[in-house]
C-alpha cells in the first residue's frame, strides 16, 4: 500500500513538471497533443510500477472438485483446490496427507455417480488403472520429473563379440555432476558424466567377453552416493558359422586369406578358382563336396554368401547367370562382388559406377566403417573407388570420403560391391582385428537371412513383479505357451494372423523363460520394483496424459455458477503505451526543431 501511494505521488509530480515544461515551451505548436502524450507516458510508467487488476465474472462448477492423489504429487499444487474432495489409492499418501480418503480400487470412484470429472495429481495412473476409469474425464496435473534417466535403449540380444551399446538421456537437476557407470561382472566397464543442471544424452559401450545370460548394471553415482542401480539384462549367443562360396578368376592372396580366416573359425567354405582355361581348383573346407563346375540352383542354395570376382560372375553361362539372379532376388542370397576393371553394365555392377583414384588419394588411407564410430588401420585403397548412386548404401570409405564398399538391395537378397583387393595386408601385418571387423561386417550384411519358426518379444516396457506383462509371439502356428510351469493362452492378432499376445503376471524378479509347447526356451527379464523408476513414472504420466486428452471429448456440460475473479492486467500494454507516447514526443521535438532551424536560415538569408 505504501509503495502504491509513493509511486502515485512520484508519478503525479513528474506529470505536473512535464506538463508545465510543455506549456512553457517557446514553440507552442501541438500543445494539446503534447500534454496528452506526457500524461499517457507517465500513466504508463505508473502502470508498470503498480499492479493493475480488474474483476470479471467467472463460471465454476457448482460442486467441489474430485481430486485423486497419486505418488509424487506436490502438496503445494493443491492450494487452489481447498474445498475439494481428496482421494488416494496409496497408503503412504494417506499417512502423509490425512484429509485424503483412501480407496481400495479405482472402481469406487467410478461407482460414485456424483463424480463427473477427476483431477489427477502426481505421477498419474498406469494403463491398467486407467482402463478401470471407464472413460471418466480426467484432468491431469503431472508433477515434473526432477532427476533420472528419461530414456534408455540397449541391444539386449547380442552375438558373441558384438558390442553392447547403452544409449539414453539423463536429466540432472542437481548442482553436482552425476556419473553414469556401466557395471558388469564386478567391474566398471564404461562411464559418462552428466553436467549439473542439464539434460544430456549419453552412450556407454562395452564388448562382453562372456557368453550366455548376464545382468549388467547402470549405476547413477554422485560423489560417493549411489543414487540408482538399474539392471541391464543381456543375452549373448554364440555365432553360428555360415557357408560361403568363393569364385575367383585366379588364385590370389585376397581370397586365400579370406578362405583361411573363415575356415579357421569353423565356417564352411567352398572355393573355385580358375587355374587355366576351363580348369578349376576346387576346395571344400568343413563342407561336403558339391559340383562347382556348373552352378545350379541346388548348389547355390546351400550357401549363405557368394564372394566372387566380377569377371567370373560376368562370364557365367546364361543359364548359370539366370539361376544366380533368381537365387539372389527370390531366395535372398547375398553376393559380395570384388570389383575389377572390366567394364559393362550387368545387373551386378550398374549400381556401382567406378571412378579412378588419382594423386594422393591412391596413398594408404584410414578406412572408416560408415555409421559406426570405428576407424580401421591404413590400407592402400587400390586404384578405383565407387561413385555414390541413389539406392545404394555405402559401408566402407576412406578418409577422403571415397566409397570403397557399397551395397544395395537386390530383390530379397543383398548385392555388395567392394573395390578393396588387399585387405590381406592387415593379416600379414598381424592386424587380425581390423580384418575381422571388415569382413565380419561385409559377410554379416550380405548373408542370407535365416529362417526361424518363432520370435518372442516383450511388449511391456519395464516388466515388474505383480504387474501384467504382455508377451508377443510371432509364429506360423498357434500353440499354448509355458512360462516356467504356467500355461498361457494365446490371443491372436486380428490383422496379422501370425501374431499372438500372451499376458502374464510375474511372481518374482529375474530371468523368466517362455516357450511354445515343443519350441526352444526363450528368456526375458523381470525387473525389481525399484528399478527404472523415472522411466515408469514418465510412462505413467504419458499414459494418463493421453487418457486425459482422449477422455476430454466426452466431457459433459455441468451446471455453472457465477463468481467474481480478480485478473491482473499484463504489463505489456503499459510498456507499449509508454513507447508510443515517448516516440511521439521525440518525433515532435525533432520536427519542430527542424522547422525552427529552417525558419532561422530563411531569416538569415533575408538579413544578408
Amino acid at each position, binding site marked *: 500500500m505504501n509503495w502504491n501511494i509513493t509511486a502515485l505521488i512520484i508519478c503525479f509530480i513528474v506529470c505536473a513538471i512535464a506538463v508545465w515544461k510543455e506549456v512553457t515551451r517557446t514553440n507552442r505548436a501541438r500543445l494539446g497533443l503534447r500534454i496528452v502524450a506526457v500524461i499517457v507516458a507517465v500513466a504508463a510508467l505508473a502502470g508498470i510500477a503498480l499492479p493493475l487488476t480488474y474483476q470479471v465474472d467467472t463460471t465454476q462448477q457448482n460442486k467441489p472438485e474430485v481430486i485423486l492423489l497419486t505418488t509424487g504429487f506436490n502438496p503445494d499444487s493443491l492450494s487452489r483446490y481447498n474445498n475439494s474432495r481428496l482421494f488416494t489409492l496409496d497408503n503412504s499418501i494417506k499417512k502423509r496427507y490425512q484429509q485424503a480418503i483412501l480407496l481400495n480400487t479405482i472402481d469406487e470412484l467410478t461407482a460414485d455417480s456424483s463424480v463427473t470429472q477427476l483431477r489427477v495429481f502426481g505421477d498419474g495412473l498406469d494403463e491398467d488403472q486407467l482402463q478401470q476409469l471407464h472413460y471418466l474425464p480426467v484432468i491431469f496435473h503431472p508433477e515434473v520429473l526432477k532427476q533420472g534417466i528419461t530414456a534408455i535403449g540397449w541391444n539386449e540380444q547380442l*552375438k*558373441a*563379440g*558384438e558390442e553392447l551399446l547403452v544409449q539414453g538421456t539423463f536429466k540432472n537437476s542437481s548442482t553436482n555432476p552425476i556419473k553414469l557407470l556401466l557395471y558388469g*561382472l*564386478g567391474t566398471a566397464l564404461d562411464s559418462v558424466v552428466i553436467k549439473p543442471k542439464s539434460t544430456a544424452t549419453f552412450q556407454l559401450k562395452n*564388448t562382453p*567377453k*562372456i*557368453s*550366455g*545370460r*548376464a*545382468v549388467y548394471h547402470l549405476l547413477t553415482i554422485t560423489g560417493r552416493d549411489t543414487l540408482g542401480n538399474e539392471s541391464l539384462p543381456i543375452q549373448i549367443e554364440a*555365432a553360428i558359422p*555360415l557357408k560361403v562360396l568363393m569364385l575367383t578368376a585366379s588364385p590370389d592372396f585376397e581370397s586365400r586369406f579370406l578362405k583361411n580366416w573363415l*575356415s*579357421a*573359425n*569353423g*565356417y564352411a567354405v567352398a572355393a573355385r578358382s580358375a*587355374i*587355366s*582355361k*576351363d*580348369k*578349376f*581348383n*576346387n*576346395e*571344400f*573346407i*568343413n563342407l561336403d*563336396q558339391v559340383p562347382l563346375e556348373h552352378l545350379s540352383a541346388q548348389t547355390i542354395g546351400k550357401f*549363405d554368401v557368394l564372394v566372387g570376382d566380377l569377371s567370373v560372375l560376368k562370364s557365367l553361362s546364361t543359364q548359370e547367370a539366370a539361376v544366380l539372379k533368381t537365387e539372389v532376388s527370390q531366395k535372398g542370397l547375398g553376393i559380395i562382388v570384388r570389383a575389377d576393371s572390366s567394364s559393362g553394365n550387368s545387373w551386378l555392377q550398374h549400381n556401382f559406377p567406378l571412378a579412378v583414384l588419382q594423386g594422393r588419394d591412391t596413398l594408404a588411407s584410414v578406412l572408416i566403417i560408415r555409421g559406426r564410430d570405428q576407424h580401421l588401420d591404413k590400407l592402400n585403397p587400390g586404384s578405383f573407388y565407387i561413385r555414390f548412386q541413389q539406392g545404394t548404401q555405402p559401408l566402407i570409405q576412406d578418409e577422403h570420403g571415397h566409397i570403397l564398399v557399397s551395397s544395395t538391395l537386390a*530383390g*530379397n537378397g543383398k548385392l555388395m560391391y567392394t573395390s578393396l583387393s588387399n585387405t590381406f595386408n592387415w593379416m600379414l601385418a598381424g592386424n587380425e582385428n581390423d580384418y*575381422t*571387423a571388415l569382413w*565380419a*561386417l*561385409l*559377410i*554379416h550384411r550380405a*548373408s*542370407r*537371412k*535365416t*529362417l*526361424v*519358426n518363432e*520370435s518372442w518379444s516383450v511388449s511391456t516396457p519395464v516388466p515388474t513383479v505383480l504387474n501384467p506383462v504382455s508377451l508377443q509371439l*510371432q*509364429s*506360423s502356428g498357434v500353440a499354448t505357451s509355458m512360462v516356467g510351469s504356467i500355461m498361457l493362452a494365446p490371443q491372436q492378432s486380428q490383422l*496379422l*494372423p*501370425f501374431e499372438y499376445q500372451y499376458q502374464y503376471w510375474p511372481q518374482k*524378479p529375474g*530371468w523368466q523363460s517362455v516357450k511354445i509347447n515343443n519350441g526352444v526356451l526363450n528368456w526375458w527379464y523381470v525387473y525389481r520394483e525399484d528399478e527404472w523408476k523415472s522411466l515408469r513414472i514418465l510412462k505413467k504420466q504419458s499414459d494418463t496424459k493421453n487418457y486425459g486428452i482422449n477422455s476430454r471429448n466426452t466431457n459433459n456440460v455441468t451446471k455453472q455458477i457465477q463468481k467474481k475473479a480478480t485478473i491482473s492486467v499484463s504489463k505489456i500494454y503499459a510498456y507499449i503505451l509508454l513507447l508510443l507516447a515517448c516516440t511521439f514526443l521525440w518525433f515532435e521535438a525533432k520536427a519542430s526543431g527542424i522547422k525552427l532551424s529552417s525558419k532561422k536560415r530563411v531569416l538569415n538569408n533575408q538579413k544578408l
Partner: protein
Amino acid sequence: MTKQEVMYKVKSMRRWYVGYQVSAGFLFAAAFTVALGTLLFFLLSCSVTWLWVVLLIAFILYIIYTRPWRINEYSILNFLDRHYPELEESGNLLLKSDDELNLLERLQQTKIREQFAAIPVQQKQFLKPLKQAALILISVALVCFVLIKVVPHDLHQIGFTGLHQSGTKNTPIEKLLPQIAAVEVSMSPPAYTGKPTRTQDKLTIDAEEGAVVSWKISTNIPVKQLALLFNYKERVSLTALNHDRIVWGARKKISQPGFYQVSIDGKLSDLYQVQVIKDQPPVVRIKTPKPYTYIDAGEAQKINIDAAVTDDYGINNALIVATVAKGSGEAVKFKEYKLDFSTSFNGHSPQYNLQKLINLPSLNMEPGDELYFYIQATDTHQQQSRTDVYTVSIQDTAQLLSMDGILTGTDQKPEFFRSERQIILDAEKLLKDKDSISTEKFKSRSNDLGTDQKLLRLRYGKFLGEESENDMGGNENDAVSDINNYGNADVIKDKYTDKHDNAEDADFFDPLLKNQLKATLTEMWKAELQLRLYKPQNALPFAYKALRLLKDLQQKSRLYVAKTAFNPPPLKLEKRLSGDLTKVNQPIIKQNIKPGVDQLVSLRKAVEILEQLKSGGGLSSKDLQVLALTNQQLSLQASAEPRIYLAALSAMRRILSDRSNIKPDDITRVEKAIQKTLTPAKRMPVAMQNPVDMGLSQEYYKNLNQLNR
C-alpha cells in the same frame, strides 16, 4: 602498611612475574615442539615419543634466554613507578630501611606506602608473554591439526619407501584353522638383498625371490599330521618340534608365487597367498655424454661420462666397456678396453652416481678414430644390465685437408692400361734371356720394347691432346695451303680456332688427372730412352713407376656400368591358352578344419551359472562341471598372480563348498576375476533373421515386382 607487608607484597609480585614467565616459556616450547613434530612426521615419519626431549631443551633454552630470575624486587618497583604515577617515582624508597632515609624521604615513604597498598598484586602486564605464548601455541596446534587431517598420511611412503611398500595393508584378515593356536613365519631373504630375517604372525607371505621361509605353527591340541599344500600340488610336511606334538615346523625356499593351505590331519584351511618379490636388474642412466658425440678438430679430446646406477638391493659393480675403432673400410681395427669407475662398490648401496673422465689419446685414439662404449652394471644378485652403445668420434683432419672432392667434379680415365705391365714382363724376360741370346738379338728386342713403349706413350698422349707422330712433320694435305681453298674463311677458321663444342676435342680430364697422366708419360719417356739405349735393367724402375702411376689413376675412380635390360620376344596371342588340357586333372582339395578349442569357454559360461546362483536357482550336474572347470582355471591364474586372483579363488571355493549359503560378494569377486582373465571375444559374421510373418514380406515383394513390370 608496614615495611614487612610491603616487602611481602613486592616479593609476591616478583613470584607472580617469574611464574608467568616460566609458564610462557613452557607454552612457547610446546608450540615449537608441535610444529617440529608435525614437520618431521610428514617428511620423515619419525615417531613422536622423543619429542619430549625437544620440549625440554626448547624450554631450557627459552628460560636461559629470558633469565626471569634476574628480576629482583627493585626491578618490580621500577616497573611500578613507571605504571603508577601515584607512586611519584619513589617506589625504591619503600624497601630502604629507615636509617638510610633522610627526613624528606621518610615523609615520602610514609605517603607512598598508603598509595602502594592500593596497587594490586596481579599486574596485567605480567600476563602479556603468557597470552602471547598461548596464542601461538593454539594457532600452531590448529595449523598442524589441519595439516594432519587434510594431507594424506602416506605421503612419506610415496617419496621415501616406495620400493618397500609391502602388502600388509591390503591383506585380508586371515582365517586360521581352529586347531592353530599361534603361527610364526620367519623369512630369511637371500644374501643378495642384504636384509635381515624377519618374523611375522601371518601366513600370507611376501618374500624376496629365493628367500627361505620357515613356519612354526603351534596347535592348541596335539595333532597327528600337519602339512602345507602349495598350489594344490606340492606338499611340505611339518615336523613336530616337541613331544606333545603341539609345535610344528618346516622350511621351504620360495621361488614361485602362488598360494598354499595348511592341512591339519587332512583338514584344509583357507588359501594364503605367496608373493614373490623379484629382483630387478640394475638400471643405468647416462647423463652425459649424448648418444653420439663428435669432437671437432681443435677441441679437447676427452669425454666426461656421468652416469647414475640404481638397483632395488645393491650394486655389485659397474664398468665402462669401450671399443676403439681405428682406420676405415676393410682396414678397420678394433681394440677393446674395460675401464673402471674410480668409485668403490664395496658398500653395495642401491644407488651410485658415477663419473669418469676419459682422455681419448690415452686410448691411442687419433683423428678419424671412433670410440664406442657402454656401461655395464652388476647387482648383488649377479644380474647384469647394460646401456645402449654410445659413440664418440674425433674428426679426421687428413680427410679434411684433402682437395679431392673439390677439384674432381667427375672422374674419367683412359681406356687401356694393360701394356705397361706387358712391357715390364718382357723386359724382365729379356734380362733373363740376356746370357742365352746373342747381343744383336738382345739389342733388337730391347729396341722393339722401346718401340712398344713409344706406342703406348703415344696412345696415352692422345688423351692429353698431344700431337701424334703424324703431326710432327709437315702436313702435306694441309687444307689451308690448298690453293682450292683460297679465300675460304671456313677452312682457316677450322684450323686456327678452338672447337669447344666438339666432343672429340674437348678435354676429358680434370687438371689433377692430367698432371698424373703427364707424369706417367714422362716416366714412359725415360723408360723408352733406357730401352733404346739397350739398358732394359735401367728402364725397369721407370717402367714400374709408370705402372704404379697408371694403377693409381685406375684406383682414383671406378666406373659405373649400367645394367642392360632384357627384351623378351613378343607373345603370340593367338597361341595363348590354346594348349590341349584334356588330360589335366582338376585338383580338388577337401579338408575339415576345426576351430581352435577356446581354453576359456568354461569361464565364459560360468557367469550365467553364477547369476543363476545369485537369484537362488539350482544347479544341474553340467553347471557344476562348468564351475569346477572355472575353479581349475582360477587356481591356475592364482598360482601365477596370487595377489589378484587368490581372493576370487577362495570365493569360488566357498561357493562350491556351501551352495546353500552363498554371499553375493563372493560371486562378484569371482565374476571380477573372470572378467579379468577372459580375452575379448572375436566378432564373427552371423546371419540376420528373417521375420516370422508367414511369407507376408515375400508376398509384398512379389506384388511390388509385378507393379514395376
